[in-house]
């Protein structure tokens, strides 16, 4: 169980920290979008160009990881409060962990492929 590997307070420290750091990265992201102009930033070529800029790709990857970790842990906490029981709690914990890893893997694949010009 995740909770037996990590104390709940350690998980919550990660939860709060990922939220705070993600806010910082989201601010950078919004500022870049505002600088370019909103409608221009939605153009296909401009979207792809974002991934080809390594610093910006790093920002996107960081946002993906931070928001996934924070979001899936939040979901886990909500689901654990709705229903209790060992089997259910383990399923929720491992399910959220697996979904988080899957989302990060899929998102990272997209970022890497786009930055390497494979899209």
């Amino acid at each position, binding site marked *: 169980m995740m909770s037996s590997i990590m104390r*709940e*307070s350690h998980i*919550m*420290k990660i939860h*709060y920290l990922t939220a705070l750091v993600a806010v910082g990265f989201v601010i950078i992201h919004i500022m870049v979008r505002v600088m370019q102009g909103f409608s221009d930033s939605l153009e296909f070529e401009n979207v792809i160009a974002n991934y080809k800029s390594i610093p910006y790709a790093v920002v996107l990857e960081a946002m993906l990881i931070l928001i996934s970790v924070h979001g899936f842990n939040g979901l886990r*906490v909500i689901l*654990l*409060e*709705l229903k*209790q029981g060992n089997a259910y709690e383990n399923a929720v914990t491992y399910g959220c962990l697996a979904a988080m890893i899957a989302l990060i893997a899929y998102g990272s694949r997209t970022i890497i492929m786009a930055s390497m010009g494979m899209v």
Partner: protein
Amino acid sequence: MTKGGALPKGFERPSDSDSQEKYEEVKPSSKTITLRISKFNPEKDHTPTFLEFTVPYQRWTTVLDAILEVKSYHDHSIGVRYSCRQATCGSCGMIINGKPKLACFTKISELNSNVVTVEPMNNFPLIRDLTVGFERMISTHKRIKPYIIREDSEISSGTKEFLQTPEDVEKYIQFAGCIKCGLCNSACPTMATDSTFIGPQGLAQAYRYIADNRDQGKDERLRIIDERHGIWGCHFSGSCSQVCPKGVDPAMGIQLLRGYLLGYKK
């Protein structure tokens, strides 16, 4: 105006010529309320019903007095738990007009309503009518080790009493006022959904002992509350602190406990 100072309405001091040292009986009040009492026996009934009674009241009549009036003269079968009648024992917690309160500590005249509805507390298993089971609350209370933990004691040789400064006492004294009435647990939204949550009562008591500088069981208690259904389940709605009849602030205690666990409080 009565002679010799204010007396409750309905009392009259005997005249000087009257040698008998007794007051006249309280006159029956003309004021009445409709008392709606939730009636439900889980072993027999399918759904709760409300019984309505017209009850006379005075300025000082409490909701518990009104319930006992009904129990004495209208329906003996009403299930209600009470004991001290002075907000000390914590037995008569119930939902009064939608809010968790002690029946002995709530005056009808303060409710500003002609209809007073009493129901059993939320988040507790119902025994019958207004009586709920306290097993879960007592077991979580025991779980957090509600006593001073330390190697030596005041009766060990070489030790006398463990002195505390007023500042030391100030850190925990409000939490020591808990009477285990369960109103905070009844008001807690997390308790409503999470059947294994420790609850504001247990968490506030954990803080009460951790903040006591005579205690050495901090790490032990922090381990107990630092689990899935422990302190992190609190959403900080603050309703526990709003309903406490003794002025305890469990929500604050929970935030202070989180400070220990997150490392910004030693």
